[in-house]
Every structure is written in C-alpha cells, then in structure tokens.
C-alpha cells in the first residue's frame, strides 16, 4: 500500500493486517515510555482544511509515538485562507520533504486528487474527504468491534452491525460499509429515506427505514451525528421527530442483545441521535474508540512508511 484513500481499496487480508498491527503497536501505549523509534527522521504533515481537533490530535499522537516529526498545517490563519490552491500547498509540502500527508478536506475526492495528480510524492492518508470516505475511522470502529466481539482476532464474520443516521452525508458510513463487509460483517443502514443515498441497492448492505425492528438482532450499533442544518433543508420535519424515530434512548438500549455495544464517531449530539444515559452507559464504547484510533493510525503510518526502501535512520 502506498496511500490510504478509501476503505473500499482494502482487501480482507490487508484489513486484518492493519488491525493486528494496531493491536501490537497498541501494547506500546501500555508502556511507561510510549514511543517506538520506527519512523525517526520521517516527516508526517497533518493538512487539515476542516476543523477536526480529535482526528488531528489522534494522527499527531500516532505519528509521535512512532517518533516521526509532525507538522500541523491547518487552513485557518494560513496561506490557504489567503486563497492558496491545494496544488500549491502540496508543492510546498513536497519541498519541505513530507513523507506522508494526512489530509482532511471538505471536498470529496481531494485525497485521491492529492495522491494522483502528480503534485507530490508523499503517501497520502485520507482523514476524511467531503461526504466520501474516512477510512481510518472505519478501521478504528472495526478494531473496537473486534476487540469486544471477536477477541480471538481475525475478521468480523457473522457479526451484525447497524449504522443509524445521516447516511447520505456520512463519510464514516461509506467507509464502514466497505470495511465491515470486507471483514465479513452484515451491515444494515438505518435512516429516513431522505438520508439514504440514491443507488444504495448496489451497496453490499441492507437498508431499513425503521430502527426498532433491527434492535434485537445487532451485535453493534453505530449512531451517526445528525447536523441540525439538515432539518432546515427538509430532510426531516423536526429534531424531536427525528429523535423519536431514530434516536437511541434507554428503552431502545434495553432491547439490544446483552453483548451488543454502542459506537459513535463523535462529536455526539446528546438528546438528538443518542440520549445522555445511553452515551454514559457501560455499553457505549466511545472513549475506547478514541484510544483505538491512535493505535489504528499508528498501524497505518507504520505500514505505509516503514520498510518502503527509504532510510529511516
């Protein structure tokens, strides 16, 4: 692998390798000195065109634990806000010797373009592009699900995962559909028809317009953030109605199987897609997701940058 642009490009063996590597590297986190020398002398640039503190610091922590030099480049207050193009920013990073660029961008396909337009030699990691994909989020979700429900390792064969909410605009949902099904899980998307993408029939998953019928058969349920501006755009009549039909509250939580876990990519809208008592319950694994995110991103950086022939010394 040279870039990580889409979860759809990862096959089963690669996915399992990333998860296994994440588990191994995660052991470092438990040591008193949380650092490996693997990427010493390599430069990782976090190029963030959208605000995303949690994803950026997760990548930053991952790179630093592998001893890479980290440069943070955020659009606000930089040349980007003065109108510099993605291409010119890429050329600048190239000149500074970036070995990997972690890109968060509001435009779908931006990471693909950065990797393939001939602007830059660095490895490109997609940290979220528009409404397209967010592959490391899917990897950390899969890692979290595996740790709870398939602790012996391997893939997620036989598990059932529901993804609930704004599928239409969600890069997290797209990446998870690809990755979880590649790993053998059954995925059901749950949303009102207005928030289901056109052509979803061709996706390798089931679709339900109702939440209640899927509750008793899921092993993991992932609640997506629903932005209030969707309401203004008439995707649903009111926040209250959305919450009544698609929100996960204590009553619905009680109908999940005993072992089922609740995931959320954050940031949560408490009281909208998830009630406060569910968010704070022992079934919710959001804090673990954050910790696992660092491990998974370490694994991705390691697999992309270590052993690519360049002298890491």
């Amino acid at each position, binding site marked *: 692998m040279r870039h990580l642009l889409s979860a759809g490009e990862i096959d089963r063996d690669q996915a399992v390798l990333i998860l296994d590597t994440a588990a191994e590297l995660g052991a470092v986190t438990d040591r008193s000195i949380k650092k490996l020398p693997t990427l010493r002398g390599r430069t990782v640039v976090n190029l963030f065109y959208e605000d995303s503190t949690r994803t950026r610091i997760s990548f930053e922590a991952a790179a630093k634990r592998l001893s890479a030099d980290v440069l943070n480049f955020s659009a606000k207050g930089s040349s980007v806000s003065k109108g510099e193009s993605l291409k010119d920013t890429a050329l600048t990073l190239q000149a500074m010797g970036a070995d990997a660029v972690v890109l968060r961008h509001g*435009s779908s*396909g*931006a990471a693909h373009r950065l990797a393939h*337009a001939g602007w830059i030699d660095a490895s490109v990691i997609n940290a979220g592009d*528009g409404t397209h994909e967010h592959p490391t989020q899917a990897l950390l979700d899969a890692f979290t699900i595996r740790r709870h429900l398939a602790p012996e390792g391997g893939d997620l064969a036989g598990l059932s995962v529901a993804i609930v909410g704004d599928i239409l605009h969600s890069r997290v949902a797209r990446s998870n559909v690809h990755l979880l099904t590649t790993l053998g899980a059954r995925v059901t998307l749950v949303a009102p028809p207005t928030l289901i993408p*056109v052509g979803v029939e*061709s996706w390798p998953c089931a679709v339900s317009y109702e939440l209640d019928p899927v509750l008793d058969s899921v092993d993991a349920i992932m609640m997506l953030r629903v932005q209030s501006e969707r309401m203004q755009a008439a995707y649903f009549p009111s926040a209250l109605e959305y919450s009544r039909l698609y929100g996960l509250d204590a009553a619905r939580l009680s109908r999940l199987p005993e072992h089922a876990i609740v995931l959320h990519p954050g940031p949560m809208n408490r009281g909208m897609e998830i009630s406060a008592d569910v968010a704070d319950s022992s079934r919710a694994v959001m804090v673990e997701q954050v910790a696992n995110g660092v491990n998974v991103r370490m694994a991705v950086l390691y697999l992309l940058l270590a052993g690519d022939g360049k002298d890491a010394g």
Partner: protein
Amino acid sequence: MSIVLRGLRPYGEQPADLVLEEGRIADVCAPGRGVGDEVIECDGLIGLPGFVDLHTHLREPGREDAETIDTGSHAAALGGFTCVHAMANSSPVADTAGVVEQVWRLGQRCGLVDVRPVGAVTVGLGGVQLAEIGAMAHSAAAVRVFSDDGECVHDPLLMRRALEYVKIFDGVIAQHAQDPRLTEGAQMNEGALSSRLGLAGWPAVAEEAIIARDVLLAEHVGSRLHVCHVSTAGSVEVLRWAKARGVPVTAEVTPHHLLLTEELIAGYDPVYKVNPPLRSQEDVEALRHAVADGTIDAIATDHAPHPREDKDCEWAAAAMGMLGLQTAFGVVVETLVATGLLTLRQVAERMSQAPARIGRVANQGGDLVPGAPANITVVDTISRTDVRARDLVSKSGNSPYVGMALPGRVWHVAYEGRITVRDGVVA
C-alpha cells in the same frame, strides 16, 4: 479569385469539381472540368456544408485568459465550422446591443467563421428582468438566439414572456434546462456512482421537469423553444412526445454526451466535470438514437474553455465545461457515422443545416449546389488520429479527448468562398 475543389465527393457521393467564386458555389461539374485561379485537389475527400455550432463559449469579453474570439474562431475553423453562436455568459453579460455588436465585430475582424452572438434572456443572467431583447435583435448583430445558458430561466412566468416576446422577430429561446433547487451544489450525475464517490447528485429529473414545462409553455404560446445540451434518456422521451404533438421545439446534444459516461469521474479528474454532467451508457445510447431519428435536431459543442488553474485542483473547486470545437466531427464520426446511425447527408443536416435554421442564420447550412453560399468543409471519415494537447489551438487545454484516437479529419474549409483551413492548418 475563383477556387476549384477538385474531385470532391459531396456528402460522400459522386465525385465532382466545385467552383467557388464571389462567396458562392458558381458551378458543380464533372471531375477535372472545373476551371479557376486555384485548384485544391480533394481526390475523393467528402464535402459537407460548413458546420454551424449553436453553442460555443468564446469567453470574450471578460475571460480572455480562457479564450478569445480570435482563438475560439481558429479552433472552430479547424473543427470544420463556418459559423458559431457565442453564448451570452461573458463579462459583461451579452444583454445589451453594445456587447453583442462588439462580439459580432470582433468575429468579423477575425474573419475565420461567422460569429453569431447569443443574447441573454434576462439582465445579467439574473433570471428576474427581461434583457433588451429587441435592441439586440435590431442591432448590427441581428441576434435571433437568446439564452441564459449557464443558468436556467426557471421562473415559469418569465420564460413564458420571453417565449412570447421573441415572436416579434422570429427569435428562439435556447433553454439551459436545470431546475436550480433540485441541483443545489450538484457535482455529477445522481446515481449509484455519485453516492459511492460522495459527490452531490444532479438528478435527471431536474432537466426533464424543466423541458416538460417548457414544451407545454411553447405549445401554449406558439413560440419556438430550443433545448440546449440534452443529456438524459428521459429528456429524449419528453421531446419525442412534444414533437409528436407538434410543439415547435428543437433540441441539441453535445459530442461529449454522445461519447463519454460518468464512469470517467471515478478518478476525480475535473477535466470530466461539465454541466449538465456526464450520464450513463443508457443515456448515451438514447441520445445517439434520438439524433438518428431526428428527435434531437442538432449537434452543438458547448465548447467551454477554462484556464488551467480552474481544472488543476480538487473536483468541487473546479469549473464546469470542456473543449469541443476541434473534436466535434471526430466524435460524431465515432458515435454516429461509424455505428451506422447517420448517413453523411444526415450529418450535414445535424451539424449544419438544422442549426442554421434554428438560429435563422442566412448564408449558412446551404446545400452543395450551384448558387449556394460557399461555406464548405472537406473531411474524411477514415483516418484515425490521436488528439494531442499541442494541436489544440484554443487558449485553454481542458479537452477530455487528449490521448484518445478519434476517426475523421477536417482537411479544408471554405468560408464565404475563401479558404480558411488548408490541409488541417489555418490558412
């Protein structure tokens, strides 16, 4: 000065000598018999009436960094055109007699093709107030085609009024059919691929609903409607229905919608970003058959030059549009002639005669007979050549065909009896 096109085969039929004199075809006689000051050996090449483009963006005034009337005229001539309609979305917008006369005069000065300005329907393409349509029609440019192309005249009442108003001088409203609310932020054709790529969809219904409304309006007020760049199978069905009812509607399709499909977008290369967007293979097939059966009257390029920085970027930031003038004939040969859907006489109809009629352009779209205007394109349909960036004379380079081999070649072009292109080079 008289010119003999020796051994030319009009419409690919029997060889003849065509003698051009004083801007007209003076004589059509047996091969070897034509007499003139200059002889161009055509030796079996095909003669067609000069192509007429109903839809070209020449970008002048305002975006001379992308194209000028001069560079666009060169590209048009090399593509076999003797007339192009310059769309109104320049800066300033061509919504006054002053701007359309300027465009027309610059075209005259260049002298390679007849540059026919299109007038805006509404002031500044704003969709609120009718532009001074009458002043443009009665100007030296004698505008007959009016369009807000780039924007849809979506207000139904304004569209009705525009349709009615142009009856004064037998004008036509060329509609860019795109419901604005259904296409907010749209980036590509809406379907399984747009969902996978995470790009906001441009649904076919946004085009079809406007066409359906407009043909009913045109029928109601008895005015001429022309539909720009038809891109979906559903639009073809609506047009077929309207024509069967006798609605005075005509339609055009672009070469790119006859050849390219949305699958090309999977790599997010903005050279494939265009409005209306590339559609599915099923749409392409429907459009080809609609040209063959006459539901679609004309091929129009929607030649849309953009400077490099507007394409060398991420998808959402990129401008919509692609070059088309120099490659139009090759695409028509590939998609319609080589497939047996069109005869060469029908190519002449779709690329020259019908667009000339729709635009009410005198001296264009004639037959290849004595007395007709000497606007002639000499082509073959056999040779297959690679489209190379360095051969494109447009000021911009945003051609989706670079690297493709297209059949058919424009050898010579006569415009008003003068040779504008000789052996594939501007004379």
